[in-house]
């Protein structure tokens, strides 16, 4: 176990360093950005230039970059994450609720996608060369060619035409006064379309990888030996091949989370899910720098955290990784 703990600590430190570097990168980009929120405010004839300049100075936007970075760090430490000019409020309360919504969406999609991909991929690896395996591979190719944007638009059109699904948002208006069970059903109903798009976007990659990992495990000599000993197919697949194939699948889990976050941004905007995506989008259009920084940092943190969890899972299932210790960990950190 100490192997796992020390490797987890090392990962944690590494993740923190990456996040710090990301924040510096984003701040540098911010310095290069032309235009600002206040540049647009100056167009308002009802505000005198002096007022705008005073507002800008009050937000500290005239200070040099290192000073602003230091102030931002302090405000992160204080739990404010900077100040949103467009919302006229600290950033963290704005972002917190959105992140929760994005997590609801992406984690549901992640769970569902794996629940579908695992049996499909295993089945198609086990039935290699048969028609159903080829059908699964063909379906995966077809689904891969269907971009999230297109699928989301198509589903939205379907929802509009049929009225089977809501065309946006997370709750029905006024559902706050319903009982808990009705609220939950309402939430699930709103979740349907965005989750479908995300699952469809992720499924082909997952199925292909699960299939490849499983096929490799099934091809191993010890499986042939076990089969020769007369061990049942069922036990062979689930008892022998699956634990071996779990290793590459777990590393995929971390990666798939990143892809999911990317996919969910556009989907959230199209289907009106009040998550991180629309917030970032509006912040870019409004030139609201600290919201952009917070959204980007949080997405990075989620991805780093997801990868870390996957690595921990990896160390859990594959004791070799833990005992090999520092050498293996440092190698896997810089592949």
């Amino acid at each position, binding site marked *: 176990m100490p192997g796992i703990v020390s490797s987890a600590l090392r990962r944690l430190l590494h993740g923190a360093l*990456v996040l710090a570097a*990301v924040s510096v990168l984003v701040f540098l980009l911010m310095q290069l950005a032309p235009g600002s929120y206040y540049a647009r405010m100056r167009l308002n004839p009802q505000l005198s230039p002096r007022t705008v300049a005073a507002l800008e100075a009050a937000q500290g936007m005239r200070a040099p970059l290192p000073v602003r970075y230091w102030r931002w760090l302090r405000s992160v430490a204080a739990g404010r994450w900077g100040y949103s000019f467009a919302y006229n409020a600290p950033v963290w309360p704005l972002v917190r609720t959105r992140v929760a919504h994005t997590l609801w969406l992406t984690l549901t999609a992640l769970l569902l996608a794996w629940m579908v991909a695992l049996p499909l991929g295993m089945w198609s690896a086990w039935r290699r060369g048969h028609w159903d395996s080829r059908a699964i591979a063909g379906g995966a190719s077809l689904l891969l060619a269907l971009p999230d944007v297109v699928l989301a638009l198509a589903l939205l059109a379907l929802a509009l035409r049929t009225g089977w699904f809501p065309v946006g948002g997370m709750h029905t208006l006024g559902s706050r006064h319903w009982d808990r069970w009705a609220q939950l059903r309402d939430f699930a109903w709103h979740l349907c379309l965005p989750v479908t798009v995300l699952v469809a976007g992720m499924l082909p990659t997952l199925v292909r990888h699960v299939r490849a990992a499983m096929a490799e495990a099934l091809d191993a000599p010890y499986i042939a030996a076990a089969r020769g000993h007369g061990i049942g197919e069922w036990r062979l697949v689930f008892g022998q091949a699956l634990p071996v194939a779990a290793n590459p699948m777990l590393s995929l889990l971390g990666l798939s989370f990143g892809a999911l976050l990317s996919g969910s941004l556009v989907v959230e905007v199209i289907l009106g899910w009040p998550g991180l995506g629309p917030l970032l989008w509006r912040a870019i259009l409004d030139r609201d720098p600290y919201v952009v920084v917070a959204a*980007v940092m949080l997405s990075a943190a989620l991805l780093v955290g997801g990868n870390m969890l996957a690595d921990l899972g990896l160390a859990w299932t594959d004791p070799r990784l833990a005992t090999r210790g520092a050498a293996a960990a440092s190698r896997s950190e810089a592949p």
Partner: protein
Amino acid sequence: MPRRGWRWPLAALIAFHVLVLGAGFFAPYAPARQFRRFPFAPPMRLHWWGPRGHFHWRPFVYPWRPLAERYGPPRYRLDASHPLPLHFFRHGHLFAVPGRGVFLLGTDALGRDELSRLLYGGRLSLLAGLLGAGLALSLGLVLGGAAGFMGGWTDALVMRGAELFLALPWIYLLFAARAFLPLSVSGAAAFLMLVAILGLTGWGRPARLIRGVALAARERDYVRSARGFGGSRWYVLRRHIWPETYSVALTQAALLAPQFILAEVALGFLGLGAAPPTASWGAMLAGLLKLYVLESYAWLFAPAVALVVVVLLYDWLATSLAA
């Protein structure tokens, strides 16, 4: 194992690129030309057989007549009494109808010909994706190759940099980079901007892969002997290391290009790509964000269909290259 079946998708993709590159010839109108009397005109069908069952070598269309309505969506009547034959190779265009608008894929909210915009928009979307992938791959080849071959602090530096770029979900990274560029850019500047941010944000993954190949190639006997015979680092990198990585790079190109095309579409869709009236597939799809448009005008999905076909072709190419 010999690679099979890559010729078909490649040929189809080249055909697509020829179409969009020759948009000035294949498209009947300029992408920003507005036919103010024909907003949301449905696609016109090409007819080969006349009303009396005669076959015409020159296909013709029936024009739309706008119905005068003060409120509500624009409506059109098919004017079957005035068939308009297409004239081919007129005024430097593949086809045209003199003096009239011909809309084979319908028009958008401003009465702009969807087919023309599809072709001109494809120029931006497809080429920005392709060149962006080329840029990312070149950076990957140079940085990844150098990192794998040199090792030491070069390797550490490059790989930490790649890690930084991979630590962000890549759409967020793309948006972050985009957030700090001017909001409204058009024309050639927009194209260059898109290529640059796609390439500069996407080099991490190919660099990692190519570094792996270069790392393996460094230990090969012929590389060692080339070094032993006094070949300079640059010579060995150029003659022995990079050729090893080409097959990986080629497959990566076929994988990256559609991703970058989709990224361009996502940016254009959210109004962060080229500024209007520049046509791009993403900007065209953005018209569908209005629910009444989405519900009523199915022909505005044309860029989506083109997108799916292109991505499918790239996927086919990538799998046949990797096989």
